């Protein structure tokens, strides 16, 4: 547990301290951004795999996949991180905090993106499938050259949204001691017993990234049209 001393009345903002810790917090921010980028990459790939698995004709594949997706979406990311970090070593797989974080983010958001892919694929008109059959295209070619190229652009705004959402979740790495903006802030605060400046700087730097990112995603939505998953 993190324990912070209670300041007496007469607290005032310590600008000198705030500027002193700025580099450390900013470096934490960078780690969070990196974790987000790696995590979204895993999530985008996993999402597509899950979406395709969910369309399998075999119930044996479809049902467990659907259940896993529902289960991961219905449980907190934090507990999933703990599960990966503490349980997997029992099965011989010990992951570093950073890898735990990005794998956890990737799996959690992979289930969300799989819904977006599913909607995107479903939205490709029937006629495209029928034309592919009429032209005797193989299944692989149909998927790779006809269906996915039409499905994926519509998924982009949703993926953008999940990227921003993932960034907002990524500081959770502090729970498994993965480097990030929150770890930097809490470390600093417990070292100096001055929590206000670290957490405020953290908040401001965080907004400095998340707000422009949100605006950019809204631009993407307008550009590519909005498909709700």
């Amino acid at each position: 547990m993190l324990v912070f001393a209670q300041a007496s009345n007469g607290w005032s903002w310590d600008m000198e301290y705030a500027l002193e810790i700025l580099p450390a917090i900013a470096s934490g921010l960078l780690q969070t951004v990196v974790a987000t980028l790696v995590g979204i990459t895993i999530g985008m790939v996993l999402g597509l795999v899950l979406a395709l698995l969910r369309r399998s004709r075999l119930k044996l594949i479809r049902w467990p996949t659907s259940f896993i997706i529902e289960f991961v979406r219905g449980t907190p990311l934090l507990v999933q991180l703990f599960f990966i970090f503490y349980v997997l070593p029992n099965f011989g797989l010990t992951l570093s905090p950073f890898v735990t974080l990005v794998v956890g983010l990737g799996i959690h958001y992979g289930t969300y993106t799989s819904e977006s892919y599913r909607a995107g694929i479903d939205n490709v008109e029937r006629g495209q499938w029928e034309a592919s059959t009429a032209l005797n295209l193989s299944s692989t070619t149909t998927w790779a050259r006809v269906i996915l190229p039409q499905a994926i652009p519509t998924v982009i705004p949703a993926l953008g949204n999940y990227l921003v959402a993932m960034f907002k979740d990524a500081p959770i790495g502090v729970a498994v001691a993965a480097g990030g903006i929150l770890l930097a802030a809490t470390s600093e605060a417990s070292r100096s017993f001055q929590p206000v400046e670290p957490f405020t700087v953290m908040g401001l730097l965080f907004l400095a990234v998340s707000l422009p990112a949100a605006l950019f995603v809204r631009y993407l939505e307008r550009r590519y049209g909005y498909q709700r998953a």
Partner: protein
Amino acid sequence: MLNANQFQSFLDGAWLTVQVFLLAALLGTILSMIFGIMGLSENRFWRALARVYVEVARGASAIVLIFFAAFAIPIILGIPPRIFAAAITALGVNMGGYGAEVVRTGIQSVPRGQTEASIALNLTVTDRLRHIVLPQAVVVMIPPYGSLSIEVMKGTALVSLVGLADLTNRAQNLRIQRPVIEAAGGTAPSSVVIFGTALVMYFLMSQVIALFYRWLERRVGGRWYKERG
């Protein structure tokens, strides 16, 4: 497997989770309605204020807000720290940002013709809101509000990081206790069981919420909503 005491501890933790969730959801709903309707004001100032709240409340993620509220705000305000209240406030404010958009777009989705017909029938503005606009807006709002509620419930797991004894916190504690239990000669439940049980309990909670919202939609929507084109 968990023994009776341990399971009871988990249930106690789950109960705290439920309390945090319900109180945060209450605050979040109130803020959603206030800022959602504010965002529809004819007055530019109110609209701008609502916009600022929505962007900041959403842009600062729940975890950032929770830490800031729990550790920085008490010092800034010169009051003793109250983690429970801080966590609920942070989660509620964050939820309000998303909920306000759901409320605003829900009301905007009611066609203008409904307002015009109400004017043509000389209804007062209050009657128009109460009998025509809100009943139609609410039905539209229910599904996204349901998803949002589940996200908030999952977000309550974060309060374990600031010291509240919720379900996640109990699971973590039990894991930490394992060596102690073993040393005292007992058999401690494995990590799989500990975190697996926690995940299942969260999953059940999210399913209950989902069922509630599905029931609510049927109840409020009724025949007219399902049949409309």
